């Protein structure tokens, strides 16, 4: 008894605490012997660290392998969801138009349909270019220099929607010779800027660029 107490608590317990510890005694079936499990135990070979590493390598290989597959699956799910938000091929095909500028004579404004809206492409004369470039910006309702609205001074590309209530203006009309909206009488100049009438802002310039051989790409 005393030896057991010393085994459990090497510092020794107080005498009045001794009753708390009882030796484990089998009071019945004391003839049953403990089975021998040594056959089922992990091999206690001298190179135990080696065996442990092998076991861990296998465990982590399984964990890592399923993580790899899981990551690939998660990536493809996210990819599917995000790519479903992007525009489909038919929408992208309609989003851009190409215009052959060689077919537009000087001084003419031609209307195209672009993303469901009218698009004005105007081949400006030298006189119009000079007039628009020399306009005093401070007098304008929506001050914007002509050079900010065109990439090539000969070509004006604007969305042909009046900024007042969305009518389509008439080309080569109005007091400034640019565009005139018949609905409520807004006058635009040859740069698409509002000069007179109820419209609050200039007509919108879409994104465009010049391609090869006089091709204009809008969108």
């Amino acid at each position, binding site marked *: 008894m005393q030896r057991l107490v010393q085994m459990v608590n090497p510092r020794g317990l107080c005498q009045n605490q001794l009753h708390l510890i009882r030796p484990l005694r089998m009071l019945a079936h004391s003839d049953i012997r403990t089975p021998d499990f040594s056959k089922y135990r992990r091999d206690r070979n001298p190179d135990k660290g*080696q065996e442990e*590493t*092998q076991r*861990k*390598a*296998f465990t*982590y*290989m399984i964990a*890592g*392998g399923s*993580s*790899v*597959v899981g*990551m*690939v699956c998660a*990536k493809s799910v996210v990819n599917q969801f995000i790519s479903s938000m992007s525009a489909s091929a038919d929408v992208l095909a309609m989003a851009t138009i190409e215009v052959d500028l060689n077919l537009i004579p000087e001084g003419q404004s031609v209307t195209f349909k672009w993303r469901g809206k009218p698009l004005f492409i105007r081949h400006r004369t030298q006189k119009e270019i000079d007039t628009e470039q020399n306009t005093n910006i401070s007098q304008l309702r929506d001050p914007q220099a002509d050079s900010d609205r065109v990439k090539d001074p000969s070509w004006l590309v604007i969305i042909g929607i009046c900024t007042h209530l969305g009518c389509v203006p008439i080309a080569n009309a109005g007091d400034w010779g640019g565009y005139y909206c018949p609905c409520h009488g807004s006058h635009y100049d040859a740069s698409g800027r509002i000069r007179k009438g109820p419209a609050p802002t200039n007509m919108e310039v879409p994104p465009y660029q010049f391609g090869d051989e006089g091709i204009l790409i809008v969108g």
Partner: protein
Amino acid sequence: MALGNTVYNLLFKKTSSFMLTVAVGAFAFERGFDKLTDYVWESHNKGKLWRDIKDKYE
């Protein structure tokens, strides 16, 4: 087996290198898996693909 030890000590022992292994492995696995499934699909559909019949129409 020495290979298991090397693999464990190099790749799996530190969490950071384990995660790196998983990320690099995911990249390699995806590429390999895509190549393999493409190859299987294309060899199954051999003769029906556009690149097989293109010379008839051009």
